[in-house]
């Protein structure tokens, strides 16, 4: 068996960035990138937005093309699912029986949509077969074909994926209902004030909400599906999309005995419990040095990208800790929302008006250190969120009065505290 050098399982954002990162950081040996889908690595953020909205024939937004991979001597094995890992012999086996010997292995297996579990109706009929999920380009194309004007679309779950699809479906002229189990949308991750702005905007665009909703059953007939709620209401829909979170894909890792803890557990270098196996992106949980080593798992584009690059360095022997400040964004209509840091670790929130650009919230931990910041409005919020990210990284104590004062530039706080 030939030596396949650095082997990467998963050809999404993380896997693609890791492969590129290995070359950029000087690795000249073999690189093998194994992907389950048939496409070259592509960007997932457009799947809930541009792919569903744009008029022309869509195509994936490639991170890197197959030609470019070839040029960089990255052996791209696509349409193949890795089946098992033999840690003693350093061998990965894929579905068709082929084996790859690795020097170092990166698991970039990502996450899968959480499946909707309904109370058992007794007949088994409540488990509707036509509930859609959105993760892959194929999922997006299938959903796109169903978002026709006048179609009744149910979005189960008021999180980011669901709300972005709700906006896209409205754009296509569908009748949209967002169904949320909690008392408000975006319960995880953003303060209530931002959730209210987003909800009001969706309502203004004609989206209906059913909050505090319990689903009793979903029955599918040929032409439509009926959702029956625990409050007795029953509604008919043409399309049902569930966006109720994602679960890390840890099948391979647990199959070969690696430590699992809300994802594949890695250390601050992104190394698993096996010194020759690393994990990065949505599939892993890691201790964050800026938050007292708290173990977290992120499902975000920038994290996937930066951890891919970081893991490449670790595979080549770097001992540097991964300490990037978490960051993500969501676009719905012309509203943009950005969050940096970990809002749930904060104790108090301070508001700063950005005028016509939007609103910024600072989430402060003990000692007035900045734990997180979130903003909603136009794209211009990005500037202040980026500065807030630097303030979080600086771990400096800040004055809430200055943070709240729009005429005090955030950059000046950074300079003072640097």
């Amino acid at each position, binding site marked *: 068996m030939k030596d396949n050098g650095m082997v990467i399982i998963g050809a999404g954002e993380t896997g693609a960035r890791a492969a590129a990162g290995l070359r950029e950081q000087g690795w000249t040996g073999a690189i093998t990138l194994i992907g389950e889908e048939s496409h070259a690595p592509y960007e997932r953020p457009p799947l809930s937005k541009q792919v569903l909205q744009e008029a022309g024939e869509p195509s994936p937004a490639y991170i890197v093309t197959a030609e470019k991979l070839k040029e960089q001597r990255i052996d791209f094995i696509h349409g193949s699912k890795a089946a098992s890992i033999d840690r003693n012999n350093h061998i990965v086996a894929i579905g068709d029986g082929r084996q790859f010997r690795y020097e170092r292995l990166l698991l970039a297996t990502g996450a899968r949509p959480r499946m909707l579990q309904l109370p058992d109706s007794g007949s088994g009929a409540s488990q509707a077969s036509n509930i859609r999920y959105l993760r892959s380009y194929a999922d997006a194309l299938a959903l796109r074909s169903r978002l026709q004007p006048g179609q009744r679309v149910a979005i189960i779950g008021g999180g980011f994926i669901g709300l972005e699809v709700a906006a896209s479906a409205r754009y296509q002229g569908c009748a949209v209902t967002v169904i949320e189990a909690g008392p408000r949308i975006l319960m995880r991750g953003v303060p209530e004030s931002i959730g209210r702005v987003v909800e009001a905007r969706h309502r203004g665009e004609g989206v209906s909400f059913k909050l505090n909703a319990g689903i009793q059953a979903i029955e599918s007939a040929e032409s439509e599906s009926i959702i029956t709620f625990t409050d007795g209401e029953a509604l008919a829909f043409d399309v049902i999309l569930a966006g109720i979170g994602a679960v890390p894909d840890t099948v391979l890792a647990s199959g070969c005995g690696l430590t699992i803890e809300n994802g594949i557990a890695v250390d601050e270098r992104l190394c698993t419990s096996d010194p020759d196996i690393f994990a990065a992106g949505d599939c892993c949980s890691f201790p964050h040095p800026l938050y007292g080593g708290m173990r977290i798992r992120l499902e975000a584009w920038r994290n996937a990208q930066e951890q891919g690059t970081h893991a490449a360095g670790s595979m080549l022997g770097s001992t540097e800790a991964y300490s990037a400040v978490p960051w993500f964004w969501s676009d719905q209509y012309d509203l943009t929302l950005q969050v940096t840091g970990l809002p749930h670790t904060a104790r108090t929130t301070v508001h700063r008006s950005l005028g016509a650009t939007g609103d910024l919230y600072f989430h402060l931990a003990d000692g007035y250190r900045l734990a997180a910041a979130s903003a909603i409005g136009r794209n*211009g919020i990005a*500037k202040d969120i*980026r500065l807030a990210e630097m303030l979080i990284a600086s771990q400096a104590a800040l004055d809430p009065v200055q943070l709240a004062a729009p005429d005090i530039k955030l950059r000046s706080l950074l300079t003072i505290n640097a």
Partner: protein
Amino acid sequence: MTYEGWIAACDAEDIDEEDVIRFDYEDRTFAIYRSDKSEYYATDGYCTHEKFHLSDGLVMGKHIECPKHNGRFDYTTGEAKRAPVCNALQTYPVKNEAGQIWIKIS
């Protein structure tokens, strides 16, 4: 106001130090920068990666960072400095005459 291809874009004081503003002219859009040394530069407005306006991004030294994907350019040369951007940004000559910023876009 124009002369010999130069267009009056803004007042020098319209842009904070180490910041950027948007400037639209006819059907084109630009980003005009003021460095931390109060030197002025101009580039195309949109990022070469996806269509996001760079005037919404953060200026750090001689770099501008895209507000959406954190790609980076050297705004003094247009050079792409960090993924995901790989194509350079078009730059334009700028002059500051008595507090009036002019850019040459043709």
